[in-house]
């Protein structure tokens, strides 16, 4: 066990700052407004996030314009974003794309792209999945010719419709390879997908002989991609833990005030027991997410085992808590105007993102050498 699970005063200060910012800038009314827009985020809030509190650059290395904080700090930010259902391309740009660059080992590319990501002036994303939905480099069919021009179709690309920089995994003669594509390059067509979770947009990319820049080694995308996805899974687990905790709070608050049969519904054991089980899952999710975080910061060899473990657990826990929250709210919980369904949709969507719990447990079993 690597972590100590002891949050420092700095951690708490960060959490408070982020929570205050999001309470002010991402209340439910804003979430609902933005989820109806095509872009799905507010550029003003995005740049305030970067300039006022430096969230985009928080965990990026100082030499690339970041603040060099740890992975646990990044998770704290994501946990809070998960609570607030923030609509912003943070997971795609700061977690997926930035880590794809960092793990590629391509210093020139890092020096060129990361400062923009840290400042929030570049929105980036990582395009791996295609019609199959697979995140494995082996399953990629988009091709790159000898001049590194890309052709093919990517699906489920997080924030692909607004990203400036598209990091695309494509197949060369040497194998799966990472490329950088300028969103404005010729032969790029982008189209938003209708999503279950309207608070996080996805897109389809069609590439037709699109000029691209090689990142890292030709044929060398598989290893870095695997590492990137482990980190993304760990980050998402923290977001899920944050969302799950919020659904528990909502359920408990409501159970204390809603009266039926002359007493609060929270005095009925059926409701009490649901809430107790939710607490168990919320606390366990928090443990799982931060266990990976501490392992990442400690440079532990256990990260590849802990990341799929956390992702699988937190996914199911969040979906379950979000569903129970609706149940505890009864009719109002099924009503569009109530936020319960927003969490339920975010939960289900993130459960599937990067591979579902069964796939992650299969990965865990493989990596444990079972």
């Amino acid at each position: 066990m690597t972590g100590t699970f002891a949050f420092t005063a700095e951690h708490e200060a960060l959490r408070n700052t982020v929570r205050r910012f999001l309470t002010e800038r991402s209340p439910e009314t804003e979430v609902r407004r933005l989820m109806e827009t095509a872009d799905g985020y507010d550029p003003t809030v995005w740049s305030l996030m970067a300039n006022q509190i430096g969230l985009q650059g928080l965990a990026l290395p100082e030499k690339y314009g970041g603040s060099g904080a740890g992975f646990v700090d990044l998770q704290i930010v994501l946990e809070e974003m998960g609570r607030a259902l923030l609509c912003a391309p943070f997971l795609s740009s700061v977690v997926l794309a930035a880590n794809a660059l960092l793990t590629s080992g391509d210093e020139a590319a890092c020096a060129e792209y990361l400062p923009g990501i840290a400042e929030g002036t570049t929105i980036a994303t990582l395009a791996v999945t295609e019609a199959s939905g697979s995140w494995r480099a082996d399953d990629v069919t988009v091709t790159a010719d000898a001049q590194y021009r890309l052709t093919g179709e990517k699906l489920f690309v997080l924030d692909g419709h607004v990203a400036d920089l598209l990091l695309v995994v494509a197949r060369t003669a040497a194998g799966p390879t990472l490329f950088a594509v300028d969103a404005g390059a010729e032969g790029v067509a982008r189209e938003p997908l209708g999503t279950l979770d309207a608070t996080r947009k996805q897109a389809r990319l069609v590439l037709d002989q699109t000029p691209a820049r090689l990142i890292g080694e030709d044929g060398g995308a598989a290893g870095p991609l695997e590492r990137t996805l482990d980190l993304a899974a760990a980050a998402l687990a923290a977001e899920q833990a944050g969302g799950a905790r919020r659904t528990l709070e909502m359920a408990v608050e409501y159970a204390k005030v809603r009266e039926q049969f002359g007493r609060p519904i929270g005095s009925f054991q059926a409701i009490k027991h649901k809430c107790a089980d939710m607490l168990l899952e919320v606390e366990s999710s928090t443990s799982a997410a931060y266990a990976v975080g501490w392992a990442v910061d400690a440079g532990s060899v256990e990260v590849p085992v802990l990341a799929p473990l956390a992702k699988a657990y937190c996914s199911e826990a969040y979906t379950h808590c979000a569903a129970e929250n609706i149940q505890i709210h009864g009719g109002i919980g099924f009503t569009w105007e109530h936020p319960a369904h927003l969490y339920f949709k975010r939960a289900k969507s993130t459960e599937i993102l990067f591979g579902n719990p069964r796939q992650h447990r299969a990965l865990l079993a493989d990596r444990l050498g079972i």
Partner: protein
Amino acid sequence: MTDRSGLTEAELAAELRAFLAEHHPGRAPKDPGERLAFLQAWQATLFDHGWAGPGWPPRWGGMGLPLPLQAVYHREMAAGRAPVPPNNIGGIVGPTILTCGTDEQRARWIPPLLRADELWCQGFSEPDAGSDLTSLRTRAVRDGDVYRVTGRKVWISGAVHADWMLCLTRTGSQESGAAGITCLALDMHAPGVRASRLRDMTGGAHFAEVEFDDVEVPVSHRIGAENEGWAAARATMGHERSTSLAASGMRYQRVTRDLLDLARRRGQADDPHVRDRLAQAVTGARLLEWSGQRVLARVLEGGEPGPLASVIRLQHGVFEQQLHTLAVDLLGPYAQLDAADPALASGERHDGNWLRGFLRTRASTIGAGTSEIQRTTIADKVLGLPPEAGNSRSTR
């Protein structure tokens, strides 16, 4: 006695490993009678070398280790497959005496308890007072310098071998509920005490029924004030619980490795459904360990153990059952055999242990308060939900 409270974590681990290398008694015998004597001897060895009661005060024979060192202690004991000491109930009784007893009582009872020279049991439950302990009926009537105790306890772990019972008795009116309960240290060898083995569903006789017929208990054996035994009973584990629960999380790391080994040996490790359940078992064991660690971290910072401490026990019971259910599924047709059948032996292993665990862990969600009661307590005490009508006194 050696004071190890100032060692670094690495030093303590090294000393404990060296101690285990020299004194490890090997595997405990299966025969219940031999087993108890073996474990008592082991506990005495621990005590005599200053390795008993990691968190307990040195004044009464404990080690007085700060919490991080307690965690190291439990981890090394688990990793070294050291036998788990007998008198587990002593782990609950001891802190009660330490917290609520007088110095005289501490000096009288704690050192022999820690050395397992004297065994204790916890006499709370009665035929008509299980989850609702506050309705207990065993009477204690003051008569000069003694209480006269009459009544019946049931499902009392280790009662047959116990020298003492931490016994909850009714001193107030039957309607007084929690407010009329007194906690006594009752000598199990006193006239009028009769403990009879009660077979459990595993076929073992782990617990017993105990009858009291006008048993005299000196007033000086009362723990805490008269009619205030309820508080004493609740002041059981406190912070001690977090470290020992963390320890069981560590033990389960090892058990899940054995489970993976079982899956391979039984040729089931390629089945995707089995692999999914194995991954879930690994997850559950890790979560238990992390929960323990988080509670520990909280306590180390001087905080209260927090909500997590309340969910660990719930988590624990459910996890143990899932783990053993999976193990038994892996045994396939062999799960139809008796746990002791030689056909379950393969090399070094005896897979009958999984079957024993499978049966034993049905109690994991009942003993020491059922999972339902635990959930209600979490909802009320941790989440602050309003009490159930007509059940405002959650008792466990």
